[in-house]
C-alpha cells in the first residue's frame, strides 16, 4: 500500500476493470484480469462474459479463480467446454477483448513471455506463450497489462511470443493474421496508452494519479508518441477498494 491509501496493483486492477464493457466477451487470464473482471461484474458490467481458455465461459465470478481451468472459471457459467471450443470461438470472431501480459513489449505492442536471451540458450526461461499468442492473434482488441519500466518497454524485445502490430501497419494481415485485430490499450502502473491509428505505434493517452508525462517517457525504452491531451485516470474509489479487499481478494492473492 502506498501513501495514497491503495497499492499500484489495486489501481491497475481498477483502471483495467473500467475498460471492461457490459455485454462483451473477454478472454481472462490468471491474475489481474480475473480481479478486474470480477470487479467489473460487481460494478458496471454484470453481464461481462469472461472466457477462460480451458473452456469456461459466462461464469459469475463470485469467487476468485486461481487457475484458468479451475472450477470458479465456470461456476454458474453458461458453457463449460474445452480449450478448442474457447479458441475456436475466438477464431470465429466472437471474442471482443483479450487481456495479456508479458515480460517485454515493443512500440508495436509485440510481447515476449517466452525467454530472456536466446531461445536455444536462455538466460531466463519464462513460462511461454500459453494462450497469449492465441488471444493476441484472434481477439478483436487486446488490452495489455504491464509494469512500466525501461527494462520491459524495449526498442527490440528478445523474442516475439505474441503478435502486436508486428512491424507496423498492414503487417498482421500480411503475415496471415485475421484482419482488423490487434492491441487496443496498454494499462500500466503509470499510465494508459493506445496505438496511433496510422503508425500503429504506442501512444500515451492517460496518466495515473501523481504520474507525469516525463516519468512515463523516462520509463519507456522506445520513442513514445504522446496524445495532444492526456486523460487523468481516477484513483480507486472507496467502493472499488472495498469490493477488492473485502469480497474479491479476501485472501490477498494479488492485492
Amino acid at each position: 500500500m502506498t501513501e495514497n491509501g491503495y497499492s499500484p496493483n489495486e489501481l491497475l486492477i481498477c483502471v483495467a476493470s473500467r475498460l471492461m464493457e457490459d455485454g462483451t466477451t473477454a478472454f481472462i487470464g490468471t491474475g489481474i484480469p480475473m480481479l478486474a473482471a470480477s470487479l467489473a461484474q460487481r460494478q458496471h458490467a454484470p453481464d461481462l462474459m469472461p472466457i477462460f481458455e480451458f473452456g469456461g465461459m459466462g461464469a459469475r465470478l463470485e469467487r476468485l479463480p486461481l487457475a484458468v481451468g479451475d472450477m470458479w472459471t465456470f461456476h454458474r457459467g453458461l458453457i463449460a467446454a474445452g480449450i478448442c471450443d474457447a479458441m475456436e470461438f475466438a477464431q470465429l470472431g466472437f471474442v471482443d477483448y483479450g487481456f495479456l501480459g508479458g515480460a517485454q513489449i515493443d512500440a508495436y505492442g509485440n510481447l515476449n513471455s517466452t525467454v530472456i536471451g536466446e531461445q536455444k540458450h536462455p538466460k531466463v526461461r519464462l513460462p511461454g506463450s500459453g494462450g497469449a499468442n492465441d488471444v493476441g492473434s484472434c481477439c478483436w482488441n487486446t488490452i495489455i497489462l504491464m509494469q512500466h519500466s525501461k527494462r520491459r518497454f524495449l526498442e527490440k524485445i528478445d523474442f516475439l511470443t505474441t503478435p502486436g502490430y508486428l512491424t507496423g501497419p498492414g503487417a498482421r494481415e500480411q503475415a496471415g493474421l485475421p484482419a482488423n485485430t490487434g492491441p487496443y490499450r496498454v494499462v500500466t502502473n503509470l499510465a494508459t496508452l493506445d496505438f496511433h491509428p496510422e503508425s500503429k505505434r504506442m501512444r500515451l493517452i492517460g496518466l495515473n494519479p501523481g504520474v507525469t508525462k516525463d516519468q512515463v517517457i523516462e520509463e519507456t525504452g522506445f520513442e513514445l508518441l504522446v496524445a495532444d491531451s492526456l486523460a487523468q485516470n481516477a484513483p480507486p474509489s472507496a467502493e472499488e477498494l472495498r469490493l477488492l479487499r473485502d469480497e474479491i481478494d479476501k485472501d490477498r492473492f494479488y492485492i
Partner: protein
Amino acid sequence: MTQDDATQIGAMDALRVFDRGEYDLLQPVDIEGLRAHNRANKSKALVDKRMTEKEAVSRFFEDGQYLGIELYGTVRCPMSVVREVIRQIRDRNITNLRICGQGCFEQELLANTGAIKGSDWTYTGLEVYGISPSWRRAVESGAVERVCEWSNAAIAWRFKAAGMGVPFLPVQVMQGTDTLRCSSAMVIENPYGAGKVALVPALIVDLGLIHVSRADKYGNCQIDGISGFAREMSRASKRLIVSAEEIVDTDVIREHPDRTQIPYFLVDAVVEAPFGSHPGEMAGAYVRDEPHIKSYYQDAQDAEKAQTYMEKWIYAVPDHEQYLDLVGRDHLESLRLGRDV
C-alpha cells in the same frame, strides 16, 4: 474478394508455402502408424482394465516415450499416476522422455527427475506463483535439450488433428511471430479463398494420462465441468491410462451415453484414484490444497529443497493409498466441496 473469386477454384497445381518453422518435429506425424497401432492394440471388446497405478505404469510407460498429461497440475490432473511415473523413472532408470509442455505442477515435478529431454512447450509455470523453478533450471542448464514453441491452442489443435486421424489442422494463430519460427508449423496460401493460413502438425502421444470424474471398469469416462483437452488428447494417445475419482457400474454410463467423453476403446488402463488430483482440485468434488502447493513453490526455489519434497511426497511413498495417509485423511475431507457449490 468477390463471390466470383471465391467460388472459382483456379487451375493451380501447387499451393505456395510462405513460411515455415525452423524446428524439426519432436514426434513424427504418422497417421497410418496410429491407425495400425489402434487396430493391433486397442481391443473393442469389453475388457476389465482396472489396475493399480503401479501396474498401469509398469505395463504402458517406457523409456523413449513422448508423454501427454491432462489438464493442469492443479486442476483435474492424474497426479497419483504422475507420482508413480516419477517413482518408476528412478527405479527403472528412465532417462529419455519427451513431453508436451502444457502444464503446471505435474510438469514441475517431472522436471525434477532430469529425464525430460525435449518439450513441445506452450506454458509451463505455476500460475499465480509465476515461473516454474525446476523447469527453469532444467531448460537453462540444457538438461532439456530441445524446446519447440507453440501456443496453447496450437498444442490443443495438434492433439485434435491426431484425434481426428488427420496429419495437420489449419489455424489462425502463430503467424508472424518467433513462436512460429521456433516451431514446425507452416504458413501456406489459402486454397479456398484469399490470404494465408497456418498449419500445425498432428501431435500423437505415446502415453497419455488423464484424470476423470468417473469411469466404468472398461474405461468409459465422464468428466464434470470443463473438458480441457481430454477429448482431443485421449484420441491422440497410443496408450492411455485413465484415473478416476470413482469407478461406477456400466449401467451409470449407459443411462446417459451423451455424457461419455472418452469411450472405452481408447483406454488401456483404468485406475481408481480418489483424490487423484491432489494437491490439485477436482470440479464438483474438492478444492485444491493451497498450503501444499504454496509450500512446494517456496521449497522449489532451491533445487535441493525440491528434491526433499520429491523424497518425502513421492519416492518414500509406495502407492496412492499411503500418499493419502501421508496427506492426512482428515485434511483431505476438509478439502471436499459442500453441497452448495
